[in-house]
């Protein structure tokens, strides 16, 4: 008889909690952003394709499906670290033997050499190059993600990737590396 009561009690308890849990699962469903979204927000959105995928989103999907997290050179070490945190895996050095800290660059078109072929315009994933057929092109520096994709298509090699200039706002207090030549 005791056994019966025990079973009954446990059984009903299990039932009650089961119902509560089930209700909670339905009632308080978390519309949490799927993992792909989260990965996508971590990626730098240069859309450069250096990971081997056509853009950041596809790479985010690939990571969600188990691809390596160290294929994003523009994001650098910091992105790898964040991805490692999110995915719960070990952070790895960047693939391809890149140096840890990416140099930020922007594309620069030497305009007197530009022939107006629009090839770079087509290549630019973020529409940061403006110009028209047989007209010179120019890069909107504020929009350029430094992805490199326009360099190769250029038939006359007139696009350079220049490092972003340091301004007083972005200068990081490297007191030991101030490039001033002493006059006296």
């Amino acid at each position, binding site marked *: 008889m005791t056994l019966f009561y025990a079973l009954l009690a446990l059984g009903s308890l299990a039932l009650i909690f089961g119902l509560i849990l089930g209700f909670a699962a339905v009632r308080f469903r978390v519309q949490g952003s799927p993992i792909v979204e989260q990965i996508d927000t971590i990626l*730098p*959105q240069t*859309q450069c*394709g*250096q*990971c*081997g*995928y*056509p*853009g950041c989103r596809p790479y985010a999907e690939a990571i969600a499906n188990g*691809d*390596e997290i160290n294929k994003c*050179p523009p994001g650098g070490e910091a992105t790898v670290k964040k991805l490692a945190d999110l995915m719960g895996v070990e952070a790895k050095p960047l*693939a*391809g*033997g*890149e*140096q840890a800290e990416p*140099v930020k660059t922007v594309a*620069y078109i*030497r*305009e*007197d*050499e*530009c*022939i*107006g*072929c629009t090839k770079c315009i087509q*290549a630019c994933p*973020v*529409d940061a190059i*403006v*110009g*028209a057929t*047989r*007209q*010179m092109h*120019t890069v909107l520096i*504020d*929009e350029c*993600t430094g992805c*490199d*994709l326009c*360099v*190769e298509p250029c*038939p*006359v*090699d007139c696009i*350079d*990737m*220049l*490092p972003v200039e340091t301004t007083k706002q972005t*200068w990081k*207090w490297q007191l030991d*590396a*101030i490039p*001033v*030549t*002493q006059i*006296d």
Partner: protein
Amino acid sequence: MEKLIQQIKQGKVWPFPGGIHPPGQKGLSNASPITRLPLPDKLVVPLKQHIGANGQLIVEKGQTVLKGQALTKPVANWSVPVHAPTSGVITDICQMPSAHPSALPELSIIIAPDGQDKWCELTPHIAFADLAHDELIDIIHNSGISGMGGAGFPTYIKADSRKPIEFLIVNAVECEPYITADDVLMREHADKIVTGIKIMQQLLSPTLTIIGIEDNKPEAIEAMQQAAKHDDTIIVQTVPTVYPSGGEKQLIQLLTDKEVPSAGIPADIGVLVHNVGTLYAIEQAVLEGKPLIERVVTVTGNTIHNAGNVWALLGTEIKHLLDCQGFSPVPQQRVVMGGPMMGFTLPTVRIGVIKTTNCILAPDHDELAEPGPEQACIRCSACADACPASLLPQQLQWFAKSKEYDKLKEYNLFDCIECGACAYVCPSEIPLVQYYRVAKVEIKEQQAEKIKAERAKERFELRKERLEREQEARQNRHKRKPAAKSADEKQKVADALARVKSSDEKSDNKSAVAAAIARAKAKKNSGELEPDNSEVAKERAARKEQARAYKAQKEAGSSTNETADDKKSAVAAAIARAKAKKAAKADEESVTEQVPVDDKKPAVAAAIARAKAKKAAKADEEPVTEQPPVDDKKAAVAAAIARAKAKKAAKADEEPVTEQPPADDKKAAVAAAIARAKAKKAAKADEELPTEQPPVDDKKAAVAAAIARAKAKKAAKADKVEELNEVSVVSEPEQPQESALHSDEDKKKAAVAAAIARAKAKKAAKADVTKSADEVTVSSELEQAKESAPLSAEDKKKAAVAKAIARAKAKKNQQEGSDKS
């Protein structure tokens, strides 16, 4: 409120938390009256000496200016003009090291004084009470006055505050050790400062004006009390000597028991703080009409024989100040602009005095010892006890070291005023402030990047959408048209359509990405799941190395960008580039590229105009056909176009050369192209560089040059001058020229021949594996994949030719269509 004013009038002050008592050292410099320096032989006036945008330059090199004449005029928000400190000639307008911790170059006007010190015409307003609010604001604005205490906030903005001001606080605290500029200014010109206060009162009508002075300046307190005694809205309040009581927020708390909300401004709580120096400058501007061209600077420190205060013209080099006061440097001399707590060391004494320069401190090593090595933090929290903002510097330091930016924000890093009290008391001599400053910059950068990434993502998505839309629209258009055409034509159009489609697809992400996908697919088929980006990465790494080298080179200051105003230098640049490329390829040394940047403004402007037009056009999916006026860059463009066309032709793209825009003076551009081409070729063939260009005057030459260049590029890709390759390249350029004019048959033959030749060459190139990894670029691979197809069968050849023709036609149609619409 009444009670508060009552308390203030009774002399009550509300101490702020923390604070330190560093040795004052003010006696070094406050004993003697302010002296006037002899005119320097050179003045360096930076365009920007305050927070905000710099004004627009209104003088030019070689111009003679009078003392007080405006050199810039305010344009954008927060821009403040600068004025000529003395009469003389502008010898140069160039980038000079700035009076900023980074010493990053800043556009500066260099004036050689003529010794006459002749004023321009001044318009004094003795009866300032009659002036309207806006007139006064304009005077302050046009006199170039910005905060002279430290940050350099434009005064006219503060004076024009739209918020009701209860307390006008005059910051005469001068809590930094060593500095006595405000002290002596008050002793000598108390009445003028009070007049300045009255002008501010007229502008802001505050309930009460409080002058806060530290109790270590009895003479100044006396002088100010004397000058303000007939006015009971002005109170001189003595505050205890604690660093940093002169900080704006600390002073407000000290005098009114109010706190400025985080990320807010004092005006939010009805308080406005002005420095005494600023008020003096306002008085000078209004009553005497003199713009801000000089200020009191304390020159002090144990290495200065005549430590004291001087009237220094803005732009006077620090060297002049030091020399005039007798300076005997010690080894490892530091020269600090500002005080010992918040000032910054100068990398050179060839920097000019600016509006915020209140002190030049040249200490020896006994008075201000050099910082010892950083030791471990023992969490003693002496820093927290000293922090006037009640932060936890010790915690911030750990987070800053481990780059935990979220934590830093949570612990209110941005409320740090960088006063240095924490680092002053730290027993482990940790440079805390330095850590915070770096972290602040990095956080700001990260935020900016995040915003940029968001925008990039958005643009990427929009672009994708647009491409899809365009493709759809094009498909629809082509579906409607071909009804009446013959079967043959239909076929052609269909081919063209196919081509368009494929090129569309390609254009979606183009070369690298497409290639990557292709590769990825290939790999997938062969069993490997993930795309291999090692090749791209390698390429990228090389490019970055280049960028890094460039940066390093720039930082070393070894090379400045050559101004390439004439075409000759463009040629030189091209040659240099070619040489550099060769060098890079030969032994992977860093490439030094010279970028002609200057003198292209019209071109850029045109490009932007065009861009705008294009954008507008794109909205309706119409290509732009109009040509904005392009002055004499036309030549260059034309040449370049010719080059590209030739290249295309060389690639057997069979696009008929339609028309050449009028080219009057192409010599130079053509020459440049030739030079580059030759250089490239030479680089490959390891030959000497030809340095002379034959004069070429007609279009043919331009085309020829371009062809040469194309050849060179191809050669570069193939990396080996092979017999086969050579043949193919040579055969290519001739055909298009003929084919553009002659019968279908010829065209076909030529094209086919060219295609075969090229394919062979490419094959050969590919077979040459040794160096090709670097050379054969992604796009060429792609092209190869696409183009090797016609080689296989006869009919495919035909198809290719047909396709090309169709494409040309389609393009024409399209253009016509768009022209019409």
